[in-house]
């Protein structure tokens, strides 16, 4: 059995204001903005609350305007995920212990934000994560170490080495990505059935509006039973 429900799958929750913290840093991306809009009403009016948001997402859910119309004491809007993560890094470097970090967005974005947070030794009681929007995964090719963002199918052609990768449920926190392994390693040319979206997030799959990555035509439709 190649695709398994491994415990390494990240666990998410709905963001809740954690009153035991003294400072609060919210980081949102794409539809993650919905979580920020939702918790806005729970929040006290405090100098210690800060928001970083980027509308960049492959689902096109840009909520910068909605967020800007709420009155935040400190709101930073960034054009790209990379820029948002950069600002997150800078803010954490200045932050004091007692800060709670709340991250909302796609799985890929959450994973990258967690990598930044890990540099500052944020533990699970200081960090909340809410997955919203695309169930697309960041996939890491175990053969050539190339990462692919926004993968929505169980098989994806690797940009780096051209192999067809089967996206496993094994998530690496260190790499902030799911592992992609050669899909037809056992019998060349034999692939599992191509599916779209990832079952645990079936409910959010309707938000997709990007094309499924092209799969080379020589993949037989035949399903390999494992």
């Amino acid at each position, binding site marked *: 059995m190649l695709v398994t429900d491994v415990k390494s799958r990240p666990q998410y929750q709905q963001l809740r204001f954690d009153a*035991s913290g003294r400072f609060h840093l919210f980081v949102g991306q794409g539809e993650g903005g919905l979580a920020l809009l939702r918790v806005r009403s729970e929040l006290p009016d405090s100098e210690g609350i800060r928001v970083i948001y980027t509308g960049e997402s492959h689902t096109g859910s840009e909520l910068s305007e909605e967020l800007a119309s709420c009155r935040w004491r400190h709101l930073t809007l960034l054009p790209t995920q990379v820029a948002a993560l950069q600002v997150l890094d800078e803010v954490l470097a200045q*932050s*004091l*212990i007692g800060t709670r970090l709340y991250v909302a967005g796609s799985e890929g974005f959450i994973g990258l934000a967690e990598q930044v947070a890990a540099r*500052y*030794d*944020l533990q699970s009681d200081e960090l909340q994560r809410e997955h919203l929007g695309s169930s697309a995964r960041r996939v890491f090719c175990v053969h050539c170490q190339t990462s692919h963002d926004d993968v929505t199918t169980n098989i994806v052609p690797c940009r780096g080495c051209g192999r067809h990768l089967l996206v496993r449920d094994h998530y690496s926190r260190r790499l902030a990505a799911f592992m992609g392994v050669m899909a037809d390693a056992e019998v060349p040319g034999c692939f599992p059935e191509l599916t779209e979206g990832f079952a645990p997030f079936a409910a959010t799959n309707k938000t997709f509006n990007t094309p499924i990555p092209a799969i080379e035509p020589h993949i037989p439709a035949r399903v390999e039973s494992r």
Partner: protein
Amino acid sequence: MKTVESIEVIIAAIEELTPLIKRFTLRKVGGGSLPPFSGGSHVTVVMRGGERTFRNPYSLLSSPRNLDSYEIAVRRDAQGRGGSLFMHHIVTVGTRLEISHPINLFPLSKLARKQILIAGGVGITPILAMVDDLSAGAISWELHYCIRGPDHAYFGTWLSERYGDRVRLYDTSIGQRIDFAALAGWQPLGTHLYVCGPQSMIVDALESGRVAGWPESHLHAEQFAPPPVGEAFDVHLAGSGKIVQVSAEQSLLEALEAAGIEAPYLCRSGACGRCELNVLELDGELLHNDHWLTEEDRLSGTKIMPCVSRAKCRRLVLDW
């Protein structure tokens, strides 16, 4: 089943460091290296004192980089149950003792960005070995150490000479106090705090951290308090049908051990959870003194930590 494997040691040196504290150097009987340990570890020393056997946990204070010997420090407690008096008055150079393998229930975080150590009195012992570990690494650290007065400054002076500014001493005899609120208030993300000392110091340190928003994962404390005394009671062991009497001065765990039962333990201070036993029947109340059981566990009345807790009852039946 033997739960804690023991090592035979011989007392190689005894030094009186302060009017209350003696340091003991332990070497392996027959020579050779002792097992490796990390700063914060303790061993349980078995003291066979005539009719009574004491098993007290003591932190290893010597450098974890030196395994030719271990060092422990024992504070004489005249009111205590006798373990410390045994070490002070009966043990001499050449005495053989049995100790457990080192166990670390107070380890340093490996991911920390900054380490703050706080100690009071003999609570400095695990911290001495932790500081030794830290001095070999790159993480920034500082130590705040409260002493009772100039006569009790042995470790304080030694630490200051060795580590300079990183060590801040507070002499409580002239009213010097740690300002916990200031200390906890302005630390960088990723700081860990470790406190070992009297109960009141631990409470103050942890509480100041919580007030400043520190998450529990960054707050660490250790305290080896002797098990509280109380009234005598009887324990029935469901498995063997044995009846064991627990005297007023004895802990439940000690009474089980005295009856030849090898009940499991690690910390002997109500913190690690290893000794938990199930209560099957009780005609009185459990007096919980541990830091392990949840409020729910306590209310259920079905669990007890025999290393520190006892019962006020005529009949307590344990699932053993």
